[in-house]
């Protein structure tokens, strides 16, 4: 069931009414409803993977209790939990990649093998819910969280339907207490949720899905197009993936608000970043902070020798790239970001822009800020070419072709409007990613609601693409 499908709208309305009208008095029943609906939501893709989800949830729930109760074997249980999650992830997501690459490596040495490749269907959202489970056990191990005895509460934390298939990757310390506490209806929270949903749908259905047509066309025919059009294609993809993923996240955050939950932020206007370090504080925050807390810091973080800091940074970026999928393109994408990040880290500029918002008290950015944002956007866009290309060879070829006819007037210019519109609206609301479309003037606010809502309706007839991050 896709967020941008008619079935989901019906599903959401039904669950919403049951939740607030039929079961609002009993927290336990409300949680059972959320769990049942989340499993129904997930089962729409492939009901067989419900068993995998249930098994994974049961195992992490069990390991959580074991880690908490056992002093002596605490570490062993933690490692068993990690091994179990990575094994599930590795089998479904990376088996063929590793076997195929091993075969290629052996072939280079003259050893021809016929390995056993499997026709594996990747369960939707596996990378997200296994990370939920792992963070739960990690947090218990680190003493940040006390395990819950109520399996339903834990299962809701893992499989709450707004975040089940593409995040944000939640932390038990943040979401679990909300599952365990009685939710009360709040008009303000609901309105804020609906605004997020509207803005999310606009980003996905109008912006991302429209740009995807241009992007697919440009990437499929890059050999015959001018360099300037290829630059436009890469820029379009930058906005497409932002609209797609940030759109999804906004819908997830908004839907969660409708049920009285506050999820973690995942995007803070990343294309207004002034360097790559700031970009990573604003892009897919729940994943980057997950890797920071559970990989980078345990490896020593930045409190070790310079060589080790560089090593740790490379590890975190490469793993982050690989998390996206079993393809060298994602590893290359992560590698490029590591190369862009390390100079900032070594020159102590990685924390330069972490708290304040660009042009905080002014309407427009200064020339210097404009240059910084443009340069960061250009670097991120360059890296996105690897992310989008089917293989590294094509990405390199695409970049080489940019040199041919770079000064020509580009074709496919119609998409530029779909780049400008979200950036302009985002600029206006850049101070708070959770309070979107909150214009003071009622006329402007309702004008935006109506304009965006109508646009979403109209475009929804033509654009019903799946979300990019569902494959991860």
């Amino acid at each position, binding site marked *: 069931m896709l967020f941008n499908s008619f079935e989901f709208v019906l599903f959401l309305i039904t669950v919403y009414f049951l939740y*607030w009208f039929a079961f609002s008095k009993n927290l336990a029943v409300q949680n059972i409803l959320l769990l049942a609906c989340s499993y129904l939501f997930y089962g729409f893709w492939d009901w067989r993977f419900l068993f995998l989800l249930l098994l994974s949830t049961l195992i992490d729930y069990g390991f959580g209790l074991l880690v908490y109760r056992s002093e002596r074997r605490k570490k062993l249980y933690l490692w068993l939990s990690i091994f179990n999650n990575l094994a599930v992830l590795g089998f479904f997501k990376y088996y063929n990649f590793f076997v195929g690459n091993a075969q290629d490596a052996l072939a280079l040495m003259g050893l021809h093998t016929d390995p056993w490749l499997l026709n594996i269907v990747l369960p939707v959202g596996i990378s997200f819910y296994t990370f939920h489970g792992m963070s739960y056990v990690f947090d218990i191990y680190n003493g940040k969280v006390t395990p819950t005895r109520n399996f339903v509460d834990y299962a809701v934390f893992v499989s709450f339907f707004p975040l089940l298939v593409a995040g944000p990757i939640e932390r038990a310390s943040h979401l679990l207490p909300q599952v365990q506490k009685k939710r009360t*209806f709040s*008009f303000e929270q*609901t*309105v804020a949720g609906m605004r997020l949903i509207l803005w999310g749908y606009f980003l996905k259905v109008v912006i991302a899905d429209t740009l995807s047509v241009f992007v697919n066309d440009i990437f499929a025919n890059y050999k015959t197009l001018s360099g300037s059009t290829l630059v436009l294609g890469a820029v379009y993809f930058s906005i497409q993936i932002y609209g797609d993923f940030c759109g999804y996240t906004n819908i997830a955050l908004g839907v969660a608000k409708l049920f009285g939950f506050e999820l973690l932020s995942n995007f803070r206007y990343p294309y207004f970043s002034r360097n790559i370090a700031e970009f990573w504080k604003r892009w897919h925050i729940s994943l980057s902070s997950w890797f920071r807390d559970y990989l980078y810091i345990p490896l020593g973080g930045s409190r070790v020798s310079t060589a080790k800091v560089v090593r740790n940074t490379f590890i975190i970026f490469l793993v982050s790239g690989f998390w996206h999928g079993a393809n060298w393109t994602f590893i290359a994408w992560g590698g490029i970001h590591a190369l862009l990040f390390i100079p900032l880290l070594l020159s102590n500029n990685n924390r330069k822009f972490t708290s304040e918002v660009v042009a905080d008290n002014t309407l427009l950015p200064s020339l210097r800020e404009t240059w910084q944002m443009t340069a960061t956007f250009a670097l991120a866009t360059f890296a996105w070419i690897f992310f989008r290309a089917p293989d590294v060879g094509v990405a390199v070829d695409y970049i080489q072709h940019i040199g041919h006819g770079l000064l020509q007037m580009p074709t496919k210019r119609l998409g530029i409007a779909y780049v400008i519109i979200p950036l302009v609206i985002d600029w206006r609301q850049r101070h708070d990613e959770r309070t979107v479309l909150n214009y003071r003037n009622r006329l402007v606010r*309702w004008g935006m*609601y*109506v304009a965006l*809502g*109508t646009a979403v*309706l*109209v*475009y*929804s*007839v*033509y654009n019903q693409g799946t979300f990019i991050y569902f494959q991860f």
Partner: protein
Amino acid sequence: MKQLFKKFLLYAAIVSAIYWGYLTTMSAILNRDNLYKVDAQKTVLLMGDSHIAYGIIDSNMEHVVNLSQPADMYLYNYLKLQKLLPQNPQIHTVVIGCAGHNIQQFWSDVFLTKQGFTQAKVQNYYHLLSAADMSYLLYHSPEQVIKGVVGLPKLKTPYLLKIVRHQPVTLEQLKIGGYAFHDDKLDLNKNRADVEKLNRKGTDQLALWTWHIDYLHKIVDLCKSRGVNVVFVRTPEHKLFPKPIEPEFQKFLTREFPEVPFADFIKMDLPDSCFADLDHLNYYGAKVFSDSFAHFAETLR
């Protein structure tokens, strides 16, 4: 919660009003006079569905214009003629496609519910459709009608702006019809299954699609009332294409339209390479058939 519902209803009402306003304005603009004008020398109008749209290339016939369109039911042809005939008084003959599939209930599914045809047609002809037509379509294909209406602004706005600015908009851009290039090749293996299916249906195919046929009557009456001649035409079909209702079809024509001439090219001997499938010509077939049709069209001058 009450406050939320109130606001939500207000929002839904505003969006609906905007849609209604848009659709009304769009219909008014598209129903303007002179939008359906064809060249003054075109005196013979070809109408119909995919059989005519794929089968007859009108560019070599100076007095003939093909405004048929794939999956255009007689309803849509009738609506178009209501606009075309008054705006083009030089037209003295309407040639309209008529074959077995046009009268069989068996094919109504294809026209109404399959392949998104209804969605596309609602988008093409929304400004011409009456409330009764719309309810018939809504009853048979609700999702496609809703999608069609909801998606209209994206499709039509560029042309509406052109019309308002008095810039030229062709009938082709308005999706009124025209020769449709089709270069598929006949795949007998694929089509054999269709043949078996069509033959298997047997007597079920004899049921007439009366709603559709009513519009054919309306077309003939409309033409008569304006002193325009009507001719039925049937394009070539492959010899393997099943014709289990041929005798009934002939009886139907004699019974219901005894006064309408029928130009039947069904048995025209064409090689397999001329067919896209068993009952549609491809571009090569259309080239060959159009030469023959041009001779026939000369008699209609």
